[in-house]
């Protein structure tokens, strides 16, 4: 059975509107050093789970940081558009999602925060790295 992280990646890569931009460059916790931009890195930041008196298993609430990176070139700053495009696609896809995710199911997904940032390279061109960071809340039982 796939983990929630694997299912998130499967969902990220499920449509061509995203894979046309990032290929298969979405990983949890690690990132291939040879990967070019744009790419997506995600990690689980915390998990909580209520425990009633009888210790009946309840749904888990996990929080994920999903970061989307892209980079412009000296001549073309389209990298910024790639980051924003992917972030907007994922936010719209995940906000209020319930049901199938990859090969699993989720009870609910909420994008709790979305920050955009730009890491200036100081080269005078447009080579800065553009970052969109989503904080994702997922309710799930597996």
């Amino acid at each position, binding site marked *: 059975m796939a983990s929630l992280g694997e299912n998130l990646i499967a969902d990220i890569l499920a449509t061509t509107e995203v894979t046309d931009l990032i290929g298969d460059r979405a990983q949890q916790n690690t990132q291939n050093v040879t990967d070019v931009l744009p790419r997506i890195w995600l990690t689980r930041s915390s998990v909580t789970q209520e425990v*009633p*008196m*009888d*210790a*009946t298993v*309840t749904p888990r609430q996990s929080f994920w940081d999903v970061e989307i990176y892209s980079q412009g070139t000296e001549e073309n700053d389209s990298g910024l558009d790639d980051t924003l495009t992917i972030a907007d696609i994922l936010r719209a896809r995940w906000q209020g999602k319930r049901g199938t995710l990859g090969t699993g199911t989720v009870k609910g997904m*909420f994008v709790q925060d979305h920050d955009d940032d730009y890491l200036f390279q100081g080269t005078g061109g447009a080579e800065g790295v553009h970052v969109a960071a989503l904080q994702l*809340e997922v309710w799930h039982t597996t």
Partner: protein
Amino acid sequence: MPIGEIGLGAVLKMSTTVGSTATMIGSIGIRSVNGPDGSADVLDITTLDSTTGIFRQKKKGLVDPSQVTLDMIYSSTDASQISYATAYASSGAADFFLFLPDSTLAPSQWTGFVTGMGRAVAVGDLISRAVTIDVTGDPGFETT
């Protein structure tokens, strides 16, 4: 020796046949059991010839066993939670037994009526259920 227990492992059971444990059913999904938290009436028996100076004289009156409230994680299919809804729709009394974790004592036992049922549905949280039990008679605190 340290004292103190946490609520994990406590069990609340209900029997809708008062005086019998044959139909006793345990509850699942309880976050907390609050009460009974009753209080006694206090009667002022100060008179003109009281000899207590400026201090009033008092006497303990009747004790209201008050209520027990349950905060539960909602289940639409669990038999124990359905039994609370059934008891709420009924005018009959039920017996309740609270077994504390790691206790060798007999459970706290009281008789009561399910007089309140609540449900909270929030978009980003577990659905919860609240139950109010009005206690009649001895609220069943351990005295031995």
